[in-house]
Each structure stands twice: as structure tokens, then as C-alpha cells.
């Protein structure tokens, strides 16, 4: 019984945490961008105001059923994925649903949100949306390959498909996977640049080319919902990377609420540091063309992915 209460309460807490941290990170990104660009920039909580404003729009134009469903679909996908990500190690509140094989499940679910977006954008009838969607799907084909290779490498090396097991391994052995299999980390890092869709891989909603791509016809509450989904997804990606490669968080021996606090602090620090990589790369890069982006992913990241698998097999003892 207690277990269920913790699970349900933890789910709510996780959702709130993901939303808040995701939005603050987006605000922080705007602030850091502004500082690099010699400006003062908006306050960090700016994105909350934007969201509130978008939700307070009085009129909303719907473009059919799928147009209506797309933002909801994104939110559903985001929340579902979030529930399968262990936020903190060894914590009753933030363990969430852990099951065998959730790494494979995640691979499928993370595409789910984009799919909803694609269907919704398709119904708006805006040519920019259609082109944006086709670009997005092409780009996804690009970055998914090295990413999957990196994950397969991890699965082979540690003979598990569970994130919690991977976190547990890092906790017990004291070695982070970034050192255990650096090639997998490199492949995943480079494909994460594509996942975040910041420059140079912001080809989906490139303003100078496609207005704002799939989002062109979504305004007001729809846009606000999408923003929320995007913030949660950003948090998911960050936590996933921290869980997989940077040892996860909450590996302290402090008991009770203090332990949870310290764990969250550790999580924030690690995710923030990881988040800065795509942000700073984005600040100094122009945008790739679609085919150049796919070329990029199929070159070095894929090479790293293959190396990661070989490395995993070597470590495993299967190779040689």
C-alpha cells in the first residue's frame, strides 16, 4: 500500500519537477544566449510568463481533429516517457516505474511525441509545416542511428536493458559509464545535439526558411501546451543522459529528506552541465542543410557508435 502511495505521489512530484526544471532551463538558455550576445536578456522566469500568456489567449483556431490532438499527444508522450525514467537512485519518491527493458521502450516512446506533432502539422495544410515535418523525420533518421548504436553498446556491455540496472552498476562499481565506454558517450553526445534541435540542427523550425515549421499554424493555448511538452522532453533527455553516462544522481548515503535534496542538487548540477554543451554549440553554429545534417550524423557519430559496440564486445569478452 505504501508503495503505491509513493509511486503516485512520486509521479506527481516528478511531473512538477520536470516541468519546472525544464522551463527554468529554457529561461536560463535565453539568459545565457543574451549574455553571450552582449545583452542583458530576459529574466530567468520569462518562459513561465510566456506560457501563462499563451494559455490566457482568448481565441484559438483549431485545424481539425489532429490539429487539436497534436499538443495533447506531445504532452501525453512526454509524461509517459517521464514515468519510465528513474530520476534519483535508491529513492522512494523518484524511482518511478522501472521495468526490465525500459531502455528499448524509451527508444520507441521518444519518437511518439514527434509523430503526434507530424500528424497535427500535416492537418494544418501549411506548406511550411509539411516541409518542416519531412525535414524533421529525415533528421530523426540521422540522429537515431548513432543513438541506438550507443544504447545497444551499453546493453551489450552490461547485459541489461534496464536504466535502473545501469544506474545501479555505476553506483556500486563507482565507475561512470562515460569512462567505461567513452565511444558510446561520444556517439550519444553528438546525436543529442540533434535531439535538442538547437543550432546547427534547428532545421525543423528554421525561422529564415520555414517561418517556424510544424508550429506555423499553432498559436495560443496549442503553442503553450507544446512549449510545456518541449520543456518536459528537454528535462527527460538530460536526465536520461545523466542516468546513462554520468552516474545518475542520488547516490549518497544521507537518509531522508536531506538525501533527496542532495540528490536533486546533484541531478541539477549534472543536467545543467550537460545542457550547456548543446546550448554553447548552438550559440556559435550556423544551421546545417537537411542533407548535411544527415551526413553529419552518419559520419563521425556513427563511427563512434560502431566503435562503442566493438568496445563493448571487447570488454565483454565476446570479441577476441
Amino acid at each position, binding site marked *: 500500500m505504501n508503495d503505491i502511495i509513493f509511486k503516485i505521489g512520486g509521479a506527481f512530484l516528478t511531473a512538477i519537477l520536470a516541468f519546472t526544471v525544464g522551463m527554468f532551463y529554457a529561461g536560463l538558455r535565453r539568459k545565457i544566449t543574451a549574455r553571450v550576445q552582449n545583452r542583458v536578456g*530576459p529574466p530567468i522566469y520569462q518562459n513561465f*510568463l510566456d506560457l501563462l500568456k499563451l494559455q490566457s489567449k482568448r481565441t484559438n*483556431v483549431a485545424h481539425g481533429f489532429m490539429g487539436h490532438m497534436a499538443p495533447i499527444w506531445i504532452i501525453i508522450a512526454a509524461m509517459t516517457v517521464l514515468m519510465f525514467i528513474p530520476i534519483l537512485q535508491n529513492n522512494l519518491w523518484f524511482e518511478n516505474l522501472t521495468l526490465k527493458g525500459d531502455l528499448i521502450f524509451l527508444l520507441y516512446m521518444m519518437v511518439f511525441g514527434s509523430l503526434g506533432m507530424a500528424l497535427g502539422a500535416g492537418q494544418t495544410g501549411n506548406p511550411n509545416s509539411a516541409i518542416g515535418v519531412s525535414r524533421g523525420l529525415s533528421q530523426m533518421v540521422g540522429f537515431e542511428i548513432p543513438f541506438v548504436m550507443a544504447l545497444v553498446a551499453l546493453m551489450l556491455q552490461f547485459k541489461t536493458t534496464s536504466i535502473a540496472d545501469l544506474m545501479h552498476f555505476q553506483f556500486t562499481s563507482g565507475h561512470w559509464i562515460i569512462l567505461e565506454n567513452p565511444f558510446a558517450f561520444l556517439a550519444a553526445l553528438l546525436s543529442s545535439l540533434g535531439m535538442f534541435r538547437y543550432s546547427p540542427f534547428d532545421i525543423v523550425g528554421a525561422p529564415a526558411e520555414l517561418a517556424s515549421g510544424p508550429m*506555423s*499554424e499553432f*498559436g*495560443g493555448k496549442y*503553442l503553450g501546451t507544446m512549449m510545456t511538452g518541449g520543456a518536459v522532453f528537454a528535462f527527460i533527455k538530460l536526465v536520461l543522459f545523466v542516468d546513462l553516462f554520468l552516474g545518475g544522481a542520488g547516490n549518497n548515503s544521507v537518509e531522508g529528506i536531506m538525501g533527496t535534496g542532495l540528490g536533486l542538487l546533484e541531478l541539477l548540477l549534472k543536467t545543467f552541465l550537460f545542457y550547456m554543451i548543446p546550448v554553447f554549440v548552438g550559440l556559435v553554429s550556423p544551421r546545417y542543410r537537411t542533407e548535411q545534417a544527415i551526413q553529419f550524423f552518419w559520419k563521425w557519430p556513427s563511427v563512434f557508435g560502431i566503435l562503442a559496440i566493438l568496445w563493448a564486445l571487447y570488454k565483454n569478452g565476446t570479441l577476441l
Partner: protein
Amino acid sequence: MSEKNTIGIPTVEEIKQAQIDFSPRCTAAGRVNDKETQKMVDYILNFARKHSLFVLAYGTGCGAIEIPATMTSRYDAERFGIRGAATPRQADILMITGYLSTKTLKRVIRVYEQMQDPKYVIAFGSCTINGGMYFDSYNTIKALDRYLPVDVYIAGCMPRPESVIRGFVKLQELIQKGNAGNGECYRENLDWYRENQQKVIKNWDFPENYNW
């Protein structure tokens, strides 16, 4: 100055013949909530609205040259929460940067009607107020508020970035009071606006109803 100006400014009679009424005064209904219990909600929502202004990226006239300056490092409008929006659906503010030719006016009206309430119009430059130096041009409109409800005028040709920011701050004040955003008013007085618009736009091929 009894002698006639070289340009030949029109006489009072000439102007009066072409004169039509001022733009309709908007009722506050639909904008300000009169329920006591709603005051706090309105306050919070207006606070969010005023600090998050998405300006549509549409340089309708030559005033667009001061927008980059306003948005970039020295004047940095983003610290007020002002940022660009790529499409009309996402935008709050339609900024009319200068004169409007009749060809642009048609597009601007469409863009305005695609925006979501509450939406604001900032008219930028003297030429939107009374024609400015284009008072005798056959292709530019002379007073913007005949065709679209305007919230804030920024005078000057060109207005400096400081005055642009002042205009935004003025709009923020209006939003906080609940006095800005004339989308409902536009819909209420659609006949009046349509009549004016159709006088200028000859080939009228808009959808019948206002149902974007």
C-alpha cells in the same frame, strides 16, 4: 504665409469633403472583467501578457530598419520580454513599421485577422498617423486607424529605438490596466472597418465572415 506652398497642400474644404468619422470608440466590455472575484486573476494574466510580447516579424515599411537595432545588443528589447514571432498565429503584436501601401494593407489585414486575441497593434512612424511625407502619394494610406484598431502610436520618422521602447512600455501600461487589445472591438465594428477597407482595396477577395 499667404502665398501658396510649392507643394500645394490641400485646402480645408478639400480635406473635409473626403473626411469620414473618427475610428469607433471601443467599449471596454469583453476586456475588463467586472466581477470582483476575477480582479486578481485579471491582474495576474495582464501581468503575464504585458511581460511577454511576441512581435510579428513583418517589416511592412522602412521603419523596419530600427527594429534590428531595438532587438540587438545596445537597446535589447528582450529584457522587457519582447521577442520576435515567425507567424501571425504565434504573435501578439502587429507592428506597422511605417506607411502602408494598399497592396501591403490587404496582407496586413489578413495577418491581423489571423492573430489570436488579445492582440495589439503598434503604429510606428508619422506616416501611419497622418500620411507623413507621403500625404500626396496615390499608393499609401494616410491614417491607419481607419483600417485597423491601433493601440499605440509612435511618432517620428524614423522613431529612435528609445522611442520604440517607450512605445512598448506605454503598451505595457495599457495592458496592465486592461485597456489594450482591440480584437473584440474590431469584430464588433467589423462593418465600419470593412467599409473603409473596401474603399481602398478594390479587388476584395476575403472570406465572407470573420472566422479565422
